[in-house]
């Protein structure tokens, strides 16, 4: 076990984050806070409640997760893509560190950033919206699990991407629509079939539902299903990354 190596990568990644705090923390928090202002203060009073929760409060978990998805994918993919792009990856490839340790360090740092981002976003939301968290421990566990899943996903994208466009395309083209259609702004229960059934194939529905349940005890799908989908995302991405490292896919010639 190369503990010093893991710590070195982790510290390096956190230092990079601190250097770009505006871009990686403050900007996404402000963007999300704007939704809270608009829906919470301006429009919220005119909207009906969702599952007995005020609309403004209802959208907090989903919007927080949207931001977590984007930043998780962005941070983790950039962390591994950039050394590939500049060539500094030679050092990682020639270091006495296992691929598991490297992933642990890169993804661990990205998860830390995402969890901080989510907590700051939720804290900001409380200024504008009445947020309450019924199951704080479950909330933290969901948050860490979901961040881990999407950071692993981002890491795999970073290994796969061969230019900056490919790095952006998946979060923009796949994750954002799936999140908007995944119940960030509404309860899936409100949909009619067949859309409701179709929607349940969107894993993000399960993820948001579980996270929102930890706030308000209301859920679109059973909590166990949210837990399973989160674990499946983690396991699936880990399998892909393990395969990438074993074959040297786009990392080694």
């Amino acid at each position: 076990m190369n503990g010093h190596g893991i710590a070195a990568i982790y510290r390096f990644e956190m230092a990079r984050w601190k250097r770009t705090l505006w871009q990686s923390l403050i900007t996404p928090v402000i963007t999300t806070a704007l939704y809270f202002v608009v829906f919470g203060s301006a429009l919220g009073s005119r909207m009906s409640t969702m599952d007995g929760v005020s609309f403004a409060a209802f959208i907090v978990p989903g919007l927080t997760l949207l931001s977590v998805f984007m930043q998780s994918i962005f941070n983790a993919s950039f962390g591994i893509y950039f050394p590939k792009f500049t060539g500094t990856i030679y050092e990682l490839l020639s270091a006495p560190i296992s691929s598991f340790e490297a992933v642990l360090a890169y993804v661990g740092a990205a998860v830390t950033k995402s969890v901080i981002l989510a907590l700051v976003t939720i804290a900001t939301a409380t200024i504008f919206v009445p947020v309450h968290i019924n199951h704080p421990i479950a909330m933290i566990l969901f948050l860490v699990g979901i961040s881990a899943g999407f950071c692993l996903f981002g890491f795999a994208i970073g290994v796969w991407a061969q230019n900056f466009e490919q790095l952006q395309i998946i979060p923009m083209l796949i994750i954002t629509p799936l999140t908007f259609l995944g119940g960030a702004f509404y309860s899936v229960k409100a949909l009619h079939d067949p859309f409701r059934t179709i929607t349940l194939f969107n894993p993000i529905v399960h993820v948001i539902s579980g996270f929102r349940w930890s706030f308000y005890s209301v859920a679109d799908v059973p909590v166990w299903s949210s837990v399973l989908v989160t674990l499946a995302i983690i396991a699936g991405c880990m399998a892909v990354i393990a395969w990438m490292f074993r074959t040297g896919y786009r990392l080694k010639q």
Partner: protein
Amino acid sequence: MSDPILSIRGLRKTYGTGVDALKSVDLDIRRGEIFALLGPNGAGKTTLINIVCGIVTPSSGEVLVDGRNWQSNYRYARERIGLVPQELTTEAFESVWNTVSFSRGLFGRPRNNAYIEDILKRLSLFDKCNSEMRFLSGGMKRRAMIAKALSHEPAILFLDEPTAGVDVELRRDMWDLVRKLRADGTTIILTTHYIEEAEEMADRVGVISKGELIAVDEKHDLMAKMGKKTLDIVLAEPLASVPPELSEWNVELGDNGHQLTYQFDSHAERTGIASLMRRLSDLGITYKDLSTHQSSLEEIFVELVHGGSK
């Protein structure tokens, strides 16, 4: 001779593009030597180094570090190897100090500020330790990369063209540093296009061309073995042409008929010099001066590479 610190066995590499970069290379590196790998652009030097360092996967073959396979014992092997790559690739926004400390940690070593301070001082970089990498000049960056490679106290150091783009003075400093490292027991493998660099520093020289190691020898042996000596005879009176009586020596006339040049193999049993001199005096050709000179590594290198391609 003790066991080699590094053994390369039947290493082949065909890149995805179909280029055969290495064609079955065998090479042993001795503990504590400076080994220079010479070869023209595209010969496969970087490929060879990158395979040993774990950056490129070989198509076949094996590398042993201290007798252990470098893939199944990758931690053991890599802790012992430091690499300064050919390309200057560094994190632009990190300070020199942080970049070097990062490398030490990455290679599994606990923090040791005194050691890092020492290498930065030895590389005349200590006054720059708080500068960001992007504010360094090319030569400084190169030295920072060397500091990174040395940060985990490796036993084997690869320098892939360490003096490319480095000014003359700095090159001398670099050579001194390499010698000091060798004196401390580090084994050094360097590639270079500068023959004088190999000639100046290396204990042994390997010549690689088109993916094949075409010669490996002690620098002095290589020069002696391959070395042709030339005898220059400065004539008292110019000659219009080479007299037919001298045809068996294959001498050439130069300098407007003022000089005869005779090439011979210094290791042959008969160099032919004595008989040539006798024949000259029989012919009444008088001379003012005689000198011999031995071919440099550069001349040998050119001959090897071009000889190999014929």
